[in-house]
């Protein structure tokens, strides 16, 4: 696997005149880290500037229409995630509290993953030796996933964890932490840092 850092040099072949710092991506010194939380379980008080609470919001399913690639580039036909997309692109870190369903990410979280495709281009690069979508934006946040749920075997747990790592590898995000929520109390301090 190629570290995400080596892949972020893919940029669309245009210049946009936007510098990272203007977007709040690069913080210097004591400025607090911006954070987004996506949750479908877990009751933690984590300071963040945007929460997508999947226990309260039903994200519309991707219809497979390709409008976000081919008709209104970068924009989905559904508008329900517009604020989320903005927060996602303006943050350093996204923390996901995932409720495992049948050994996998739940349908609600999977729908959210499907709806991330407007953040990438239809074009496919083969630079890493396999097919990968080209990023639409210049930078994507780091991801941490904490999950709640049991697995029948270590292999079943690996299937879930490997899938999460693979997804965010393809989404050009650094994703080193995919852990059961039972370990979170030890890490809360780290998260809140």
């Amino acid at each position: 696997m190629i570290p995400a850092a080596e892949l972020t040099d893919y940029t669309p072949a245009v210049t946009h005149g936007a510098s990272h710092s203007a977007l709040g991506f690069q913080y210097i010194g004591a400025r607090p880290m911006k954070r987004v939380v996506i949750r479908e379980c877990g009751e933690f008080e984590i300071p963040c500037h945007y929460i997508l609470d999947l226990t309260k919001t039903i994200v519309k399913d991707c219809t497979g229409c390709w409008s976000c690639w081919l008709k209104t580039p970068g924009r989905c036909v559904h508008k329900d995630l517009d604020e989320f997309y903005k927060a996602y692109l303006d943050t350093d870190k996204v923390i996901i509290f995932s409720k495992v369903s049948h050994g996998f990410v739940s349908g609600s979280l999977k729908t959210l993953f499907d709806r991330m495709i407007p953040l990438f281009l239809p074009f496919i690069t083969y630079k890493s030796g396999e097919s990968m979508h080209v990023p639409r934006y210049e930078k994507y946040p780091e991801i941490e996933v904490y999950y709640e749920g049991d697995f029948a075997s270590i292999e079943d747990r690996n299937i879930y964890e490997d899938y999460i790592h693979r997804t965010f590898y393809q989404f050009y995000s650094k994703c080193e932490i995919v852990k059961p929520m039972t370990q979170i109390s030890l890490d809360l301090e780290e998260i809140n840092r």
Partner: protein
Amino acid sequence: MRTLVINGSPKARNGNSEVFIKQFIKGREASYEVCYAAKEDSRQIAEHMKQFDTVIVAMPLYIHAMPGIVMKLIDCMEPAAVDGKSMGFIVQSGFVESAQSKYLSRYLSALAKQLNYTYLGTVIRGGSAGTYMMPEKMNRKLFQQLRMLGERFEADGSFDAEVIKELARPNELSKGKSRLLQFFFRLGLGDCIFWNMMLKQNNAIDRKFDMPFVDELLAE
């Protein structure tokens, strides 16, 4: 033996999964019932499938796995109360290499076990994004393979390993192939031609690299 085929495409009758299913059941429609995850209630489908001994789910690959609507259906599935039922999957992806679907097939194999179904296997076909738009003759070989898969399934209730292997080619991209494809990509050839053509048709070619949400952030 009657089989329930679940079309897991969000595009229901208008996508590639429908084309795959049509070929798979061609000539044997009487033994199959087809239902649509995008059109019917997940709980009802999960309940309905209990009446069948065999369930086949055909779906597109979305973000290395099943579409959200298929996972919502799986959320509702319960383990079979009796032994001897079987479950198989047909996955088609836009990415050309079938290895892109391995995260999904690994999960589907574990899922069948979890639900007390015998796992028939996952048929994987890459490079299928435009199958439903292609003229029939370009799909001839694919359709033959899918019909053969259906025929053999009808004969012994399993997915033929040889046909699965054929359909899955290429499994991974060789170094030479990925270099060639990357060369085409840099020149705006290969699959870029298809995307650019569609963008032009929609008068969206000048906006293809738009970054709408960063533009909004900057305007704030």
